[in-house]
């Protein structure tokens, strides 16, 4: 009986901004590197040479997907590490010679950037936080003002992971370039959803992650434009141009290369498809749930993210209730114990209202129209039940 019940339930994954399933092509490409092609790229023998070749080919393909040169790509252990090397490593490289310069980032950065920037403050740098408007946009006047404080580096994410707001990244990068200030952008969410190319945008540093685009977890890359110097955060055998030492994760680099290539090739079509599905879900929720606000609705947004605040609902019950109905979504961010904490992004946008619950639906490669139809049914029902009890 129990099995029938479970089988009848349709589970819908709408949390692709958290992570995605590894694509079959990716897994297939990785498999040989766990088997006979297991070599260490630093070794002289045939196993080593084979691994080195695969690694450099992977680097070439990731570089091509981003419009970069092969030598400008450093493989990392994920987006967080790429952000840390970019922010802290670049800041330290620029501060080595003299006194600590300020560091600047937006208020809605991922914790990887915010925490790295906070580390700079512990090492004597002043932190300049760029505020955002109610739609989550960094204002260019704020960039100009920050530049006047002569920070070592400015970091602004390409697109936000929670609400999806896209920043005027080409404009911001150009202003930094003109002023001679280093610029980093966290493109972890933007890559695969937007056209993300470093030949379009004059950034010095750019972070991407594999598992957000159908690649394996624990792998990412940092683009470091030729001539830009960063200090390593870890020390070892000199791999990855000494920026990220340690035996390279060849299988994951190979997997990432395939995922990145597919993501770049499919980006335009996929963005249109996901935006269509997202808009359908958005319209349905707006029509069927009173007192629902779409966050960042008026801004240029990632095509796959829908973030809504629902008045008179309970945050925990909303996410758990959706999960029990088979819909996987997320709230702000989950801490170690799994409890839900309030969003620093919505706070920066001035969008935190007591009694609101916030939920992010994020679509991805595997999302279908049927998935959206299930969510359109489930979400209003869950909200109605919660509201009835909250009001009781």
């Amino acid at each position, binding site marked *: *009986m*129990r099995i029938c*019940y479970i089988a009848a339930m349709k589970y819908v994954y709408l949390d692709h901004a958290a992570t995605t399933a590894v694509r079959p092509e990716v897994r297939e490409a990785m498999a040989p590197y766990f088997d006979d092609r297991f070599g260490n790229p630093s070794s002289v023998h045939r196993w080593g040479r084979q691994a080195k070749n695969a690694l450099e080919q992977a680097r070439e393909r990731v570089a091509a997907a981003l419009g970069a040169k092969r030598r400008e790509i450093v493989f990392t252990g994920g987006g967080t590490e790429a952000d840390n090397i970019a922010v802290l490593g670049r800041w330290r490289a620029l501060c080595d010679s003299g006194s600590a310069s300020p560091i600047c980032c937006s208020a809605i950065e991922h914790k990887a950037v915010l925490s790295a920037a906070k580390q700079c403050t512990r090492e004597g740098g002043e932190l300049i936080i760029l505020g955002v408007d109610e739609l989550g946009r960094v204002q260019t006047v704020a960039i100009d003002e920050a530049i006047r404080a002569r920070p070592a580096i400015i970091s602004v994410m390409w697109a936000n992971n929670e609400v999806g707001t896209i920043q005027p990244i080409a404009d911001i990068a150009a202003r930094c370039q003109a002023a001679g200030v280093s610029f980093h952008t966290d493109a972890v969410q933007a890559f695969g959803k937007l056209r993300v190319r470093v030949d379009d945008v004059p950034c010095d540093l750019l972070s991407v992650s594999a598992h957000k685009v159908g690649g394996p977890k624990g792998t990412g890359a940092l683009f470091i434009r030729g001539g830009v110097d960063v200090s390593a955060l870890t020390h070892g055998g000199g791999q990855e141009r000494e920026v990220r030492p340690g035996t390279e994760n060849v299988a994951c680099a190979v997997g990432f290369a395939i995922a990145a290539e597919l993501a770049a090739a499919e980006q335009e079509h996929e963005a249109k498809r996901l935006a269509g599905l997202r808009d359908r879900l958005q319209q349905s929720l707006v029509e069927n749930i009173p007192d629902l606000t779409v966050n960042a609705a008026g801004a240029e947004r990632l095509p796959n993210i829908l973030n809504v605040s629902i008045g008179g609902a*309970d945050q*925990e*019950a909303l996410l*758990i*209730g959706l*999960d*029990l109905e088979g819909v996987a979504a997320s709230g702000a961010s989950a801490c*170690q*114990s*799994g*409890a*839900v904490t309030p969003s620093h992004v919505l706070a920066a946008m001035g969008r935190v209202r007591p009694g609101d619950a916030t939920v992010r639906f994020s679509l991805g490669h595997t999302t279908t129209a049927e998935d959206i139809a299930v969510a359109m049914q489930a979400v209003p029902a869950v909200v109605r*039940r*919660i509201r009835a*009890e*909250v009001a*009781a």
Partner: protein
Amino acid sequence: MSKVLLAMSGGVDSSVAAALLVEQGHSVVGVTMKTFCYSETNSTGKTCCGLDGIMDARRVAETLGIPHYVFDMEEAFTAAVIDDFVSEYAAGRTPNPCVRCNSNTKIPDLLHKGRMLGCDVIATGHYARTHTDGSGTHILRGSDRAKDQTYFLWGVPAEVIPHLHFPVGELTKPEVRAYARRLELATADKPESQEICFVPSGDYAEFLGKRLGDDHAGLQPGAVLSTSGEVVGEHGGYARYTVGQRRGLGGGRGTPLYVLGVRPATNEVVVGTAAELYRDDVVLGDLNWLHDAPRVGDQLAVQVRHRAQAVPARVTDVAYDTVTLKLDRTQRAVTPGQSGALFVGDELIGGGRIR
């Protein structure tokens, strides 16, 4: 089959409760309540509901194939339990935070959240039973008298009772452990929780110092008095003392001395002999009745601490917010602030805080 929200502390009792509910065909949702900020304490594994408890509960839920979630109850728990714990000690009484937690946080909040999730039944791993008849649902003592936990439930709001379910209430502790081992649950041989969850070290005076400030009057030295008012020694602050306590009074005297009372206004601790600790009257305040309030002349039984025998008693006075009882035989160390749970036979009828 109804959908059941089960409170899982990560201990063996609630783990077995989960297994039993699954076996009975219920759709079970497991939750662990995060009640305070774990980084403030070093978990020793001696308490329930800590971070390790969350991990253990999650493992058991995974084994049984039921969903498990964490409810963040920190704000409510701090207000209802920790603040009360601190203010009671500051007032010279000895609080019972586990009762407060069950009555004011755990069970009512679970029902509230459960209803949001479509669960109309709340289950816990308490050793207690329920019985429903024409007059409603009643809470009865657990079958294992050595483990019975009804004492902790006297403060549960009456309207919640029809929704309660105690899956292990008919079992004994050894049966629960055997069942857990048979199912190879991760928590089968976990030790009993002993300490107060937010004071895992057991050093509550240090905890009070942190919350009240070390300069609080209750933590300053004061006089130890005999029952005749004679100063017989010095103590380290009235908040460190509880009625019946022998330790920490300085030693070397012929007859052992015990704390008989604490006077916060003057920071005095009154001591006397073991014989002077016995009383045959109890006044309860902060009352809660699960069904009807008792009347003057009613015969019932009062239990004044967990794992104490309930003593037969007669109701001698019922006022707006207090009830006075005359005990059939004297009780040792009836401690202000502790709970007095009232029973008629096996049935818990309510209770109050000892005045």
